[in-house]
């Protein structure tokens, strides 16, 4: 399957223009999709960042609200405790500090000290100072004895209220957030419990505890829009021109973001938001440089840059694809050629094997043919031997007879006898020559028949030579052999002995056929040899393959 796929790919690659166009379309679509996704991701990231800031701000504001609520409840519990109430009750009974009230104040102080000591967050004290004051603002108990006075307490009687007091005294570098709990005895305000919060603990655990000060910043602002604490002036929004008025202009009832252009020298924009804190006259303010959220480039700028980059990448990819395509085509062709080479090699091997085997077989066949030929020839010779024997027997009889006559003649004397002996000797010599001729002929036949060498001979002579070999045999079998030679010389380029062998075999077969018919008491047929050229061509092919 891999090969078929490669082949299809090769076919496709063989159309480079179409392929490049297709690649451009695909890559362009893909990169365009990436750009859109990137743009959407940037926008979503900005929204997510803003959302995170919003949630973070609200979470911190909620935590602060809960924290202040807990502190208020704690202070209210202390204000309502027996220890505190006892003092005011005893005081209301007319007791003096000289005789009894001091004990109550002592106990209250022990209670406040215990509160200072025990109320902490991860070892950081929550309260910096705790006061018990009467309705005239006179400090009854100062837990720490630092000499600091609750400056915001006036001499005027205040109504029962659980408002929290926030005072930012920036001129004297005093930042204090105070909580107040009223001491009420029999429905009447008799005093207040004032707690100064530890600003450092508040900020470190609730306001701005970010380990990375470079991102969004937080701070508390009072109702007048004044930032409670901003240690680093460089990082403080006031430095950038975020005045109290602008802070107060921020919507209070809901979270919102606004962009405030800063001073020309800095040319920065900031995103500011504030959230009210429950139970307190405070807001939690958050500010962050807009570039932190949006980045140096706007999404559209990024999109444009990404588009240009995408085009460059696309061009490069297409080039690379084209190069790879050609490489792939070449590789495929190379692989195909290698495969074909391997196939050819295998085929060659098989062919070689076949050729070798065929050669071997042909050799064997040739050998068999040779043997067959020799066998046929030997058989022919065997067949011929009978004729030869018969042919030789005649002259041998003649020779014997003449020899006997000669012996007889020798026994006689005279001229006549001498002439008879001479005649008989000549006859013997002729007969011997005839036998020699026959023997030579047979020797040549056995040696030369089947060879490929040819010579120019008269076919009539070949026929006569073959007939001479079988004439005596035909006679002995009472067969009549008629010949019809060519009226003229018919020279052909053949192996005369091979042709003679053919004619000999034809005559043998004809003899056997006639004798077979004679046995069946059928009429003997004559063998009519067609014209020699026809016999030579057809029979020779049949007999000699």
């Amino acid at each position, binding site marked *: 399957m891999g090969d078929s796929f490669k082949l299809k790919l090769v076919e496709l690659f063989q159309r480079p223009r179409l392929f490049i166009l297709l690649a451009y379309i695909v890559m362009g679509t893909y990169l365009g999709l990436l750009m859109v996704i990137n743009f959407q991701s940037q926008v979503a990231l900005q929204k997510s960042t803003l959302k995170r800031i919003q949630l973070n701000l609200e979470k911190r504001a909620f935590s602060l609200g809960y924290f202040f609520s807990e502190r208020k409840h704690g202070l209210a519990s202390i204000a309502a405790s027996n220890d505190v109430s*006892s003092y005011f009750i005893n005081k209301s009974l007319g*007791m*003096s500090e000289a*005789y009894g009230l*001091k*004990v109550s104040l002592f106990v209250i102080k022990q209670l406040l000290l215990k509160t200072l000591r025990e109320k902490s967050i991860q070892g950081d004290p929550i309260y910096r100072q705790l006061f018990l004051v009467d309705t005239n603002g006179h400090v009854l108990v100062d837990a720490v004895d630092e000499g600091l006075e609750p400056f915001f307490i006036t001499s005027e009687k205040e109504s029962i209220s659980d408002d929290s007091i926030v005072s930012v005294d920036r001129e004297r570098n005093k930042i204090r957030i105070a909580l107040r709990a009223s001491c009420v005895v029999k429905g009447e305000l008799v005093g207040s419990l004032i707690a100064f919060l530890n600003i450092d603990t508040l900020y470190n655990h609730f306001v701005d505890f970010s380990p990375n000060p470079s991102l969004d910043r937080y701070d508390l602002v009072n109702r007048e829009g004044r930032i409670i604490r901003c240690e680093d002036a460089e990082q403080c929004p006031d430095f950038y021109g975020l005045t109290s008025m602008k802070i107060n202009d921020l919507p209070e009832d809901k979270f919102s973001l606004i962009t405030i252009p800063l001073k020309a020298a800095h040319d920065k924009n900031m995103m500011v938001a504030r959230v009210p804190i429950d139970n307190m006259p405070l807001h939690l303010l958050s500010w962050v440089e807009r570039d932190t959220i949006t980045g140096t480039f706007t999404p559209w700028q990024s999109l444009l840059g990404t588009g240009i980059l995408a085009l460059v990448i696309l061009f490069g990819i297409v080039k690379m694809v084209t190069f790879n395509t050609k490489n792939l085509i070449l590789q495929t062709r190379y692989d195909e050629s290698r495969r074909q080479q391997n196939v050819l090699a295998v085929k060659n091997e098989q062919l070689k094997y076949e050729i070798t085997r065929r050669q071997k077989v042909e050799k064997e066949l040739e050998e068999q043919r040779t043997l067959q030929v020799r066998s046929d020839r030997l058989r022919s010779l065997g067949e011929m031997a009978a004729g030869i024997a018969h042919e030789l027997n005649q002259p041998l009889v003649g020779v014997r007879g003449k020899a006997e006559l000669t012996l007889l003649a020798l026994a006689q004397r005279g001229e006549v006898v001498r002439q008879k002996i001479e005649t008989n000797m000549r006859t013997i010599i002729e007969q011997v020559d005839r036998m020699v001729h026959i023997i030579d002929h047979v020797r040549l036949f056995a040696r030369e028949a089947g060879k490929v060498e040819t010579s120019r001979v008269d076919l009539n002579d070949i026929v006569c030579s073959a007939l001479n070999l079988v004439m005596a045999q035909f006679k002995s079998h009472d067969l009549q052999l008629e010949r019809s030679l060519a009226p003229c010389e018919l020279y052909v380029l053949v192996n005369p002995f091979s042709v003679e062998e053919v004619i000999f075999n034809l005559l043998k077969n004809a003899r056997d056929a006639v004798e077979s018919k004679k046995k069946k008491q059928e009429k003997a047929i004559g063998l009519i040899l067609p014209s020699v050229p026809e016999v030579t061509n057809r029979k020779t092919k049949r007999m000699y393959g």
Partner: protein
Amino acid sequence: MKCLHLKNIVMFVLTIMFISFTIPQKSHGRELEEVLEAGTLRHLGIVYANFITKEKTGLDVELMQLFAEHLGVKYEFVETDWQNVVADLTGKDVRPQGEHVEILGENHPIRGDVIATGFTILPWRKKIVNFSETTFPTGIWLLARADSPLQPITPTGEIEKDVELVKQGLAGVSVLGLKDSCLDPNLYALTGTGATIETFPANRDLNEMIPAVMARMTDTTLMDVPVALIALEKWPGEIKVIGPVSPDQGMACAFAKTSPQLSKAFDTFFKKLKSSGKYKQLVQKYYPSLFIYYPEFLMQ
């Protein structure tokens, strides 16, 4: 015969027992050497506020334990009561007569070597025992119920005047006191104030005097400052302090007149205890609010 012999033996044993119980073992308190030889310091104490609690702990218990450790002897607590505490130390039955004391008998068995039980230094007590250096400041306040029509005085800054102001308001008011103790009304010239003096039963716990006021068994009660401070913490809003009925007083350990060495040994020990700051810690442990009223105490 046998019965007579047995009867004689019984009579003899009874006589010996009678003699042993009637003849005083010692006619004087033990001196330092005797205490060291005996190997035990016997501490006479009465369950009273945080000086000696019901669990037999308290400021005076720890003080005496430290003293015994200083002497190298064992500590033994011997519980007594206000009526017999002096006799248990001196072997003399006494009766206070204002600033004087009347010796009623000298056959009382001596049961202790030192009294340390929030024992107020009183003129009549001085005549019969030797007091150590002041171990605790005190005074006597008049306490009333919170709803009592008797109003607390406005302090004048001079305690003598404050005392007079208190006495001026006692006409028709019942005042509970404890005879022969620092809360004895006779010590503070209350009889001429028009107040009705009521005596708290001697066999009752002194700590029940204030509850008696809250139970409306009496209008007011005398109480020394340490106990009053504790009561104010314990029953806030139920009792109030009207004012002082005595000038500033002091509490100290008491030794028999016949034990000057023992008393001197205590003074030496106590001086060292104060200078090390340990005694102040001890006082703050049991009376943390004391120094509010007596900030000068232990200042030197």
